[in-house]
């Protein structure tokens, strides 16, 4: 275990870097936490939902009369009652969905468990009694369940031409790329099918909503940021005039699920507005497993070409995810492609990426939502190493970007300045004797024991801010009370992250006070300021920076005041142990509380122009992105008789910059690794052919238990980042790097029996592994139907710039257009001016106006370039085909590939 490293100038640290006991723990250990279900208000009533038993169909009728007549029932609401609010089910990026999503199902249902009606009753039990009395008549339709169904089946949402929710990249391989791939010494193909996962925080979703008069709405809700909820609810429910207060003191885990409310929470809030009494809805585990947003389900095919020595030459990826019917973001996970090869010397990469709608529960985020990139890359590299005949360490040494290779820019345009996966790997190997293990492995095999070594490296973007609407800086407000006690209000929020501890450590160090004297408040949108909370491994990086800068400003004010009071110069003042000292004059030392009392109560004694009180606030804006790097290794034993996997050892070597609290950092990595082990070996949310979720309890959805998780060893390989304080985010890494580390170890253990199947389908159940060991298919008819590799399928949709239609096309004038971007569809008005075949014009969108010129018109086909500055400098190449009053085509967005454009003439 190394000593924590601090960047230059951060000064002496008494708390930063220490395993300080958490401030949250005494309350949580003694049952005094305050979770949403612990809230009880006078007059509060309870809610339950009636839900769809079918995956796809039209609602013919809903009869709520029996439920309404039941004693103890106060109201039953359907979408007809909620429709006039016109609630918009916004994404995390606050964009509206492109298909109709209503809080309760209106005229149709599109997944099993979709809420249809909400019952308000005296108790939850009574609400459930009444919900079971609601009768619904359906016209049932065949559901679209799998990705294969989605590609071949009818569109599940009215008004769409197919089930593609988002698409980017190019279907045809670029000639040069194809030539490199096909001409390489080694071309390795790899496919991963990732199962659907339930985030499964131990506390299910829940909300208590109370309308206080016409102008106030207070919500207690389990979430990742009360500020984010307040903003989302204001915009989504169209309540700009309402004072919305969101409180979430303790949250029982989230992992991406609780980024923002979804259909149930919105229904309850609207019902509370309608009914006028406080309402509570606490999701039960059956609801949580079957009708909370889920995550991960995706397939990817990756090709990578290597030269004879194993150096990477080029690569192509084809990705598709099953977004379900009502996803929180109908995206195509572009981040998979952006970060796939970011840590490697990869000269050329191209991709095709699609998201699909199906009649299943919609997806939401989960710890490292783009993690498939690390899983497929790292498992492909091991496969390639075996094929080329080199060691897994060696193939990484030959291809990883080292500190010497930086600064540089990845082939996808990602700037690399201080990533250290290669350095993490070398440090890891100092702590793991691979040569000795190989000997042990050979000896064990002779005894019929199959040991395997797995290695993986990765980088992860953390602490993102400034390039997307909700990804902001973080705010710290710190005051020294007149008593000398320090109180901080942070925009951060903990769902187990321990930010009240880590932020207090920083503030105590920077102010020179005892950790015990610092209290951190968060979890209330009425305090502090906006932040998206725990989203994208950001709070340590950005919240930490905010705590440092605000504390430094406050310390400077203390020094100014003390210098004035004590007739010394500010440079001679230090604060230590809650005392203010003057260099060389120990008799002048004063308690911080004394200075504070004067600052508040005796403004006449302050320096001229000095504001009374000791309170500051600072919003820290970090660099746009801070990379975390890591290398992990594990050793497994696979029982060749049963296909059971036992993890014998696991070592993490990570660079997360300055470590504020090693116990918190290791806790984050360990939690992510446990989730990784669950994804590889145990967890799966299967659906039957009718779209019924098959894991409705924890007896069927297998979460890792203590016996499934080994003891993790930590080698901290930290280098300070460029963010203030030098922190790098550490929240998601374990869940990203864990899966390939474990899969590689299993593949290594089973290498005497051959390669894992060409398609790596998670989870690796005993049945699947025994199939490899026995060299025959034991999965029988429980195996999923083979899915056609999409890369091999010719695109069904016509090229956008196909033959021009006959006749004159009028392009001149204004057009309503939609560009499908990675963050969701973006609407704009484009006005064209035509002179001969020369095209110029203007884009108008909520983000602003931009003009362009130099375009060409040829038989209804218009091509032009648009240079944009935000969110980054990029040239957008539009290629549009006009036909009557409609237009369609593509926009090439540099490294992001292509996005679809469609539109109609503005009337």
């Amino acid at each position, binding site marked *: 275990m190394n000593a924590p490293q601090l960047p230059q100038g951060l000064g002496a640290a008494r708390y930063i870097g220490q395993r300080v006991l958490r401030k949250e723990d005494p309350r949580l250990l003694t049952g005094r936490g305050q979770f949403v279900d612990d809230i009880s208000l006078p007059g509060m009533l309870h809610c339950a939902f009636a839900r769809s038993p079918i995956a796809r169909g039209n609602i013919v009728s809903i009869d709520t009369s029996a439920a309404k007549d039941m004693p103890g029932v106060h109201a039953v609401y359907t979408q007809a009652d909620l429709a006039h609010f016109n609630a918009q089910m916004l994404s995390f990026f606050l964009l509206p969905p492109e298909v109709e999503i209503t809080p309760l199902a209106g005229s149709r249902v599109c997944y099993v468990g979709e809420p249809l009606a909400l019952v308000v009753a005296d*108790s*939850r*039990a009574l609400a*459930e*009694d009444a919900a*079971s009395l609601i009768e619904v008549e359906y016209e049932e339709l065949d559901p679209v369940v799998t990705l294969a169904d989605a590609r071949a089946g009818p569109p599940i949402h009215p008004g769409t031409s197919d089930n593609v929710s988002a698409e980017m990249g190019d279907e045809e391989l670029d000639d040069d790329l194809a030539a490199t791939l096909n001409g390489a010494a080694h071309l390795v193909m790899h496919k991963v099918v990732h199962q659907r996962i339930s985030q499964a925080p131990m506390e299910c979703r829940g909300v208590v909503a109370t309308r206080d008069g016409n102008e106030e709405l207070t919500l207690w809700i389990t979430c990742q940021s009360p500020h984010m909820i307040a903003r989302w609810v204001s915009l989504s429910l169209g309540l700009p005039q309402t004072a919305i207060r969101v409180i979430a003191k303790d949250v029982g885990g989230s992992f991406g699920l609780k980024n923002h409310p979804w259909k149930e929470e919105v229904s309850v809030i609207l019902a509370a507005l309608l009914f006028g009494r406080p309402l509570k809805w606490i999701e*039960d*585990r*059956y609801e949580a497993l079957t009708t909370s947003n889920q995550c991960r389900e995706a397939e990817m095919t990756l090709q990578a070409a290597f030269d004879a020595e194993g150096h990477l030459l080029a690569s192509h990826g084809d990705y598709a995810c099953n977004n379900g019917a009502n996803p929180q973001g109908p995206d195509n996970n572009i981040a998979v492609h952006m970060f796939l090869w970011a840590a490697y010397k990869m000269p050329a990469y191209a991709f095709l990426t699609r998201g699909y709608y199906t009649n299943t529960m919609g997806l939401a985020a989960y710890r490292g939502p783009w993690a498939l990139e690390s899983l497929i890359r790292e498992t492909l590299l091991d496969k390639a190493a075996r094929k080329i005949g080199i060691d897994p360490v060696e193939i990484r040494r030959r291809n990883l970007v080292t500190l010497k290779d930086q600064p540089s820019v990845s082939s996808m345009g990602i700037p690399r300045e201080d990533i250290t996966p290669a350095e993490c790997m070398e440090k890891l190997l100092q702590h793991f004797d691979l040569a000795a293990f190989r000997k042990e492995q050979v000896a064990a095999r002779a005894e019929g024991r199959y040991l395997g070594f797995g290695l993986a490296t990765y980088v992860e973007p953390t602490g993102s801010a400034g390039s997307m609407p909700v990804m902001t800086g973080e705010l710290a407000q710190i005051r020294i009370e007149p008593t000398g006690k320090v109180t901080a209000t942070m925009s951060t929020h903990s769902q187990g992250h321990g930010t009240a501890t880590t932020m207090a450590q920083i503030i105590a160090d920077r102010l020179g006070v005892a950790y015990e004297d610092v209290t951190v408040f968060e979890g209330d949108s009425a305090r502090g300021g906006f932040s998206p909370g725990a989203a994208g491994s950001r709070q340590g990086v950005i919240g930490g920076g905010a705590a440092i800068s605000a504390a430094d400003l406050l310390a400077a004010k203390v020094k100014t005041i003390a210098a004035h009071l004590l007739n010394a110069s500010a440079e001679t003042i230090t604060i230590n142990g809650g005392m203010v000292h003057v260099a060389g004059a120990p008799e002048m030392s004063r308690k911080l509380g004394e200075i504070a009392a004067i600052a508040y109560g005796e403004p006449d004694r302050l320096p001229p122009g000095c504001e009374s009180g000791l309170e500051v606030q600072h919003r820290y804006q970090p660099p746009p992105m801070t990379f975390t790097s890591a290398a992990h290794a594990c050793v497994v034993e696979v029982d060749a*008789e*049963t*296909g*059971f996997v036992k993890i014998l050892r696991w070592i993490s070597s990570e660079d997360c910059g300055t470590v504020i609290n090693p116990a918190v950092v290791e806790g984050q990595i360990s939690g992510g690794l446990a989730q990784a082990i669950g994804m590889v070996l*145990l967890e*799966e949310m*299967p659906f039957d052919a009718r779209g019924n979720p*098959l*894991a409705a*309890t924890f*007896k*069927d959805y*297998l979460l*890792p*238990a203590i*016996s*499934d998780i080994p003891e993790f060893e930590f080698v901290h390989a930290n280098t300070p980042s460029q963010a203030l304080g030098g922190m790098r985010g550490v929240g998601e890494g374990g869940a990203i790097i864990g899966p390939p580390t474990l899969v590689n170890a299993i593949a290594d253990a089973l290498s005497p029996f051959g390669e894992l199947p060409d398609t790596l389908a998670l989870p690796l*159940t*005993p*049945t699947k592994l*025994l199939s490899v060991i*026995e060299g025959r298919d*034991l*999965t*029988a*008819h*429980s195996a999923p139907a083979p899915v056609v590799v999409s890369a091999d399928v010719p695109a069904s949709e016509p090229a956008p710039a196909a033959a021009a239609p006959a006749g004159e096309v009028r392009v001149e004038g204004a057009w309503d257009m939609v560009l499908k971007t990675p963050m969701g569809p973006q609407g704009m008005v484009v006005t064209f001016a035509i002179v001969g075949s020369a095209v110029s014009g203007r884009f108008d969108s909520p983000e602003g106006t931009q003009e362009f010129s130099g375009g060409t018109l040829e038989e209804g086909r218009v091509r032009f370039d648009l240079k944009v500055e935000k969110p980054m400098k990029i040239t957008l190449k539009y290629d549009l085909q006009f036909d009557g009053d409609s237009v369609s085509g593509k926009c090439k967005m540099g490294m992001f590939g292509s996005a679809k454009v469609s539109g109609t003439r503005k009337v």
Partner: protein
Amino acid sequence: MKPAPFDYVAPTSVEEACKVLAEAGGGATVLAGGQTLMPLLNLRMSQPFVLVDINKIPELSGISRSENGIRIGAATRQCDALSNALLAAELPVLVEALRHVGHHQTRNRGTVGGSITLGEPAAEQPACAVALGASIEIASVRGRRSVAATEFYVGPFMTVLEPDELVTGITFPHWPSGHITLFRELAQRPGDFALVGMVGALALEGGSITRAGLGWFGMGGTPIRARAAEAALLGQALDSVNADAIAELALSECAPFDDHHASAEYRRTVGRRLFAKALREALTVREAA
């Protein structure tokens, strides 16, 4: 997840309990430890009109020895059975099996009779009852009867128990002191139902097998007794047993199924292996002793 409404009664005698069951006309459900019933109630998969709590009936608790065998009262808690000296001495394999039932916290409440009566095909205790030749005591207002465990189970979670009947106890026949025990279970996590499991006992006289009780769990719609394998073992000397052949025979009586935790073919493949290994190791240990 709150239960549908029901009435609750807690009779203090078997007669009283049987009367309630009879009067309920099939609308009553017996509550023993509740570790399986309560989840079903909470999920509203079970919606009885009346719940008959048998925890206050003294006759139903306790473990005793008689000429006929070892009797375990139906409402005896699993944790009490686990620490029972009589069971440890006379039916060690049952104790071994009990360690795999649920978790510490559910064993503190769950009962032996509850698990036996439920008939989960992948559970340990029903398989013990079937393999070791136990009989199930049943009471109703119509009288008392006893059913061999092998006749008790008719399908997944289905038994010959009538709606007005109450299981009062399970009697395991005596197995001679020093009998060989076999137990193997493969589950993904501790407390999970078995993917594959087997249990058994072998009695010896003069170095040959004189009595065999062998059973499977998780290998079909009910706990399964491996009668052909038992028959083949009888009379054999320990060193002449072909464990693989016996396992193959035992497997022939199974009908495992696919679910999303394991395939039928997996269960067959590993079951055969597990069975043979358990037998081989038990015989080797005994031979060496």
